[in-house]
């Protein structure tokens, strides 16, 4: 702006000088011209001075210079420190430590009142009881070596404490799609057996489906395997696929505790050899943790998909096969062949579980041929905050001419309906009340029994 003014003044002075020079009268008046030139010079000087002053004023009005880099850095440090101090307050109380091996577990206590009363199993249990005390460790050695060690203390039928090395498995993770385990593990058939097992607090219901109970509590399948297991899961097109394949020692049926009453009551139903041996209904599965003398193995698989379309849904199929020998003098051998399917839907509100098992067993020693049986359950629960009411229906139709079932103490057909209510006292403690109605079959004349039971359980995890 100042330069424009200076140019305008100079132009005006120049024009004035030209005008004067052009006039005939001015030619003689050189002194006046010089005077004008001096005035012009003074004006120019004045303009220069004014320009300088305006520049100074403009500088004075400019914003303050930015803080030095050192001061900015210090300010940033102070702010970062403030954030850290603020976070320490809330974070320190939730901090976990990397050192050491954390011990986790489950425990439960309860009260039961059963109306069971039949010549085979006698009277049902009534009164307070201690459930199981389950401890497990998950030490990991480096990036890929894993282990899982689980020790369970549980009360047997006589009220004595039994200690069980439930799992001792050591694994190596090649990738998410391939983790190899060796040792004793929960047999990965269906869903329930690996999902809950002794974890009473993490299963919605108080009880397991009876046919999926542990070997020594009424289960008709080998809930544990000693062997090798390859498992993994991988995403594909948004879906998630998983699998298990395993091989382990074939279980045997220990028939030390004979139940001749059962055989006598229901002689017509049982395999004649089993009945003749007087050991019908007295056996329980033994997973041969130290190996066996038969040298036979059991194999199985499990494959599932979690489709992207329905969050919380898992659908799977599974199979289990092996040669099962009992410890009786006859040493009956049965080719166990089980195939099954299951579906699980677990959302924030709903939990629906269903499993189905089909047995097509073949007698390898007595020549009684093949026998077909089946078992299944369907359970549904609805979570409304802390309360979760649930119901479950179970059914097992087990062929009594099949040595595999006939020899087992709990290898009888049955129906059961269960209704229960779970209340979560906090995320790690649950109180459950469960009522059930059971119809036992295949117990022979006068042996079939229908009874109700009520159970209360207080379970925790840690």
């Amino acid at each position, binding site marked *: 702006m100042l330069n424009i003014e200076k140019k305008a003044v100079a132009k005006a002075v120049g024009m004035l000088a030209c005008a004067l020079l052009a006039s005939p009268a001015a030619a003689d008046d050189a002194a006046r011209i010089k005077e004008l030139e001096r005035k012009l010079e003074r004006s120019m000087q004045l303009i220069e001075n004014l320009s300088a002053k305006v520049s100074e004023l403009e500088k004075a009005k400019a914003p303050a210079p930015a803080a030095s880099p050192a001061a900015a850095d210090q300010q940033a440090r102070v702010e970062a420190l403030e954030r850290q101090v603020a*976070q320490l307050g809330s*974070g320190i*109380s939730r901090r976990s430590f990397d050192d050491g091996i954390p011990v986790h577990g489950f425990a439960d206590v309860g009260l039961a009142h059963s109306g069971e009363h039949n010549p085979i199993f006698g009277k049902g249990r009534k009164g307070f009881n201690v459930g199981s005390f389950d401890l497990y460790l998950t030490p990991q050695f480096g990036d890929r070596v*894993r282990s899982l060690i689980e020790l369970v203390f549980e009360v047997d039928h006589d009220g004595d404490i039994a200690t069980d090395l439930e799992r001792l498995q050591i694994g190596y993770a090649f990738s998410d799609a391939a983790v190899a385990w060796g040792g004793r593990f929960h047999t990965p058939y269906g869903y329930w057996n690996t999902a809950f097992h002794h974890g009473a607090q993490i299963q919605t219901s108080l009880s397991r489906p009876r046919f999926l109970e542990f070997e020594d509590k009424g289960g008709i399948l080998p809930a544990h395997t000693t062997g090798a297991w390859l498992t993994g899961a991988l995403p594909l097109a948004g879906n998630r696929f998983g699998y298990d394949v395993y091989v382990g020692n074939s279980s045997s049926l220990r028939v030390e505790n004979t139940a001749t009453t059962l055989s006598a009551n229901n002689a017509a139903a049982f395999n004649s050899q089993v009945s003749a041996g007087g050991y019908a209904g007295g056996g329980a599965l033994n997973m041969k943790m130290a190996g066996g003398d038969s040298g036979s193995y059991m194999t199985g698989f499990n494959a599932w998909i979690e489709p992207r379309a329905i969050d919380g849904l898992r659908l799977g199929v599974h199979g289990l096969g092996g040669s099962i020998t009992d410890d009786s003098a006859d040493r009956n051998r049965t080719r166990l062949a089980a195939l099954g399917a299951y579906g699980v839907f677990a959302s924030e509100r709903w939990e629906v579980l269903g499993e189905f098992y089909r047995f097509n067993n073949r007698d390898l020693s007595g020549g009684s041929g093949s026998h077909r049986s089946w078992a299944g359950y369907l359970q549904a629960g609805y979570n409304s905050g802390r309360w979760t009411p649930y119901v479950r229906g179970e059914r097992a139709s087990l062929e009594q001419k099949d040595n595999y079932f006939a020899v087992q103490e709990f290898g009888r057909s049955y129906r059961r309906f269960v209704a229960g209510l779970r209340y979560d006292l906090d995320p790690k403690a649950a109180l459950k009340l469960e009522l059930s109605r059971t119809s036992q079959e295949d117990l022979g004349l006068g042996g079939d029994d229908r009874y109700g039971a009520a159970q209360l359980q207080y379970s925790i995890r840690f």
Partner: protein
Amino acid sequence: MRNAKLARSAVLGLILAPLAAIADGYVIAHSSVNVAPGDVREIYVGNMQFAGSVKLVPVDNGAVQGDFLSKVIKTDPDRYATIWAKKGFRDGLNPPPVKSGDAEVMDFVKRTPGAIGYVSTNPGGANIIVKY
């Protein structure tokens, strides 16, 4: 005087609380980790242990865990603990260790191959997997 200070603090807290709740967060990872934003949930619920040949080492940030869980994992701390209780019991996996705050997470992620964590402030120069 004391009451006035308390009142000012309360007002300030009321103003800052919602701001903190809507603050952004950043999932960061060690330079060796190459995962997609969609993998973060799978990593934090124990379904994804490896990224290629790299063993992932997720850590939780205790100071901002609730915000992260609700925005990214779509769950709350109680359910998150239950998820890991089941995962540990079934698969023998351990939950991510919990760090005390941004500084500790950033330090851990910076020096640990395979590490992945989340912070509440822009980590500047770190390997950011996703901003949430």
